[in-house]
């Protein structure tokens, strides 16, 4: 009990500190925060190192990639409350776009990126428009099925490599001094980090504005949201499409780093893991989701020394943690605001309306 209070206090204090800070301090804090993440690959700390795998690579995949996708899925599941069990499909669509166009056309990574995102968004809309009318768990099975279908189609179509997938995907062209090769994951990580920051920025803007409110309303009470004038289907499709865009972007980047992809990589487990990241971290809370994804991606790498029971331990940890913190590590806990200005007007209907 005592430590629970303590935890919340830390969070609230941090948030309050942030709110009270003048602009210059916020800028400084943000810059040092961001700089830290760009410098992360150079950090050689035994605590966070991964003895069985390459730390710099781990930062790109799985950690960075999971974080990105978890943020994307959080728009769908966390913000608008739609259970999507086939999120990997959009990741696959991005990756296959990169792979097919990269090997068959002269287009480079930067040119393919928007195409991949657009295709992912398009398929999001295509899937979402008819099915988002379904409620709750019916949507879950439909999305689960969609995720599997994308994989099965990739396996069954010889023209895109069938089960052998596609190899020889080109790396992005050099960017100033940064060379993209499979031997050096750092530039990829930086690109990924930049994507992520961009998306965090976008999501935060949306969340605080009209779309965020619409999603909040839809998640809490779809019927009433409609009656308050929210075009719920439109906003649900938007959530789906934006989530798809994020995963699509991730897929394009991922394919260009790993250089060869096979359909089996895009299986149900990935969707479930990303969902676990979202819930584990604290559904609906951006920072929680980021933390959750980091932990869930990082832990199996960190405990590689366990060898055989590695995944077993991971599963048990998942159960234990959910039991201990059902709302996630950093729960979405809406803080109630008290603005002293709000008390200035005398109460009981003194205000006027037009």
């Amino acid at each position, binding site marked *: 009990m005592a430590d629970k209070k303590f935890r919340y206090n830390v969070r609230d204090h941090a948030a309050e500190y942030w709110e009270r800070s003048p602009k210059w301090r916020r800028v400084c804090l943000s810059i040092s925060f961001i700089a830290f993440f760009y410098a992360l690959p150079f950090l050689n700390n035994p605590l966070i190192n991964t003895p069985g795998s390459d730390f710099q690579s781990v930062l790109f995949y799985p950690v960075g990639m999971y974080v990105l996708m978890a943020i994307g899925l959080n728009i769908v599941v966390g913000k608008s409350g739609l259970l999507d069990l086939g999120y990997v499909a959009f990741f696959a669509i991005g990756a296959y776009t990169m792979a097919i166009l990269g090997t068959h056309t002269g287009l480079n990574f930067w040119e393919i990126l928007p195409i991949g995102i657009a295709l992912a968004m398009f398929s999001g809309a295509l899937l979402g428009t008819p099915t988002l009318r379904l409620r709750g768990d*019916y949507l879950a099975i*439909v999305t689960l099925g969609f995720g599997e279908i994308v994989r099965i189609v990739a396996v069954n179509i010889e023209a895109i490599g069938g089960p052998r997938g596609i190899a020889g995907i080109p790396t992005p062209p050099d960017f100033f001094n940064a060379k993209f090769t499979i031997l050096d994951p750092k530039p990829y990580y930086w690109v990924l980090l930049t994507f992520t920051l961009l998306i965090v920025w976008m999501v935060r803007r949306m969340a605080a504005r009209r779309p965020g409110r619409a999603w909040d309303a839809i998640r809490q009470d779809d019927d*009433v949201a409609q009656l308050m004038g929210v075009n719920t289907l439109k906003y649900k499709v938007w959530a789906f499409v934006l989530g798809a865009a994020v995963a699509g972007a991730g897929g394009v980047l991922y394919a260009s780093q790993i250089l060869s992809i096979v359909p089996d990589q895009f299986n149900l487990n990935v969707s479930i893991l990303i969902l*676990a990241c979202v819930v584990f971290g604290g559904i609906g809370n951006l920072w929680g989701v980021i933390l959750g994804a980091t932990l869930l991606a990082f832990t199996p790498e960190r405990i590689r020394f366990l060898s055989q*029971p590695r995944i077993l331990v991971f*599963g048990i940890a998942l*159960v234990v943690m*959910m*039991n201990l913190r059902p709302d996630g590590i950093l729960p979405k806990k809406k803080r109630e605001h008290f603005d002293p200005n709000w008390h200035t007007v005398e109460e009981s209907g003194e205000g006027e309306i037009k």
Partner: protein
Amino acid sequence: MDFALLRDAFWGLTFDGLALGAIYALISLGYTLVYGVLRLINFAHSEVFMIGTFSALVASGIMGVKVEDDPRTGWKMVLTLLVCLIAAMLASAITAVLVEIIAYRRLRQRGATKLATLISAIGVSISLVEAFRIITHSLPREFPRIMDKTFLLSYAGADIRNDKVIVIVAAGLMMFALERFISKSRYGKGIRAVSMDENTATLMGVNINKVITVTFLAGGLMAGAAAFFYILVYENTSFKVGFFLGISAFTAAVLGGIGNLKGALFGGFVLGVLETYTSAVFGTAWKAVISFLILVLVLLIKPTGLFGESIQQARV
């Protein structure tokens, strides 16, 4: 596309599809029961089934059956089959109840969200699969042939095989028994009450924990039966057996209208037959795709599945 095959082998495909569907139906009952009370997909249910198959295996060993033996006959066979069936049902039921206690109960009592519980159940599922993988050295296991497989009769090109007849009939009977139990005992009402409003249900004197335990227990028993029948027909199992069957069974539950017992039974049979037909017409590789598209079609026309009651929402 090979519609001619469907035409020529129609009755055979239908019969075999029904046998597969019977197993789906029994598993999907577990999904539907748990969904019916908690409004949650029990992700660990596929592992409840998996454990049932291994228990039947162990039971056959205890009954002194060896893989290289000839099939048994007469009372000895019946006894062995029964022991295996009961072992599978018990083990699955116990697993299901434990899953509830470990993955669900605490979370529910703390008022956790559905998703948190979902992840907790996924954690249990991952752990069980991995634990069994380690125990079985990642290898599949074979189930001895206890009962000789013979063709009872041939009708219009369909070979009616004894084991599959048993599966279809037994699934129907079990389903019937379950339906009777749920509708005649107080539990059926308790389950529905808890699913609609836990607080009011307790006020009516419903012991929520007990009702939920009974639900998991019943789902587990059915999954155990499914496990036994599965292993009787297909004669092998592995740690990953639950995964593929689980998805199909869950799809069946949704197709029939999740939360509805008759729907699960019906959905199971329909999906079994559907998968067999689509495999014949479009090739087995496409069966999942086609079955899924049909599911979506059904849901778009009838958003709550074939038998589903309309989702109950307080009116505005």
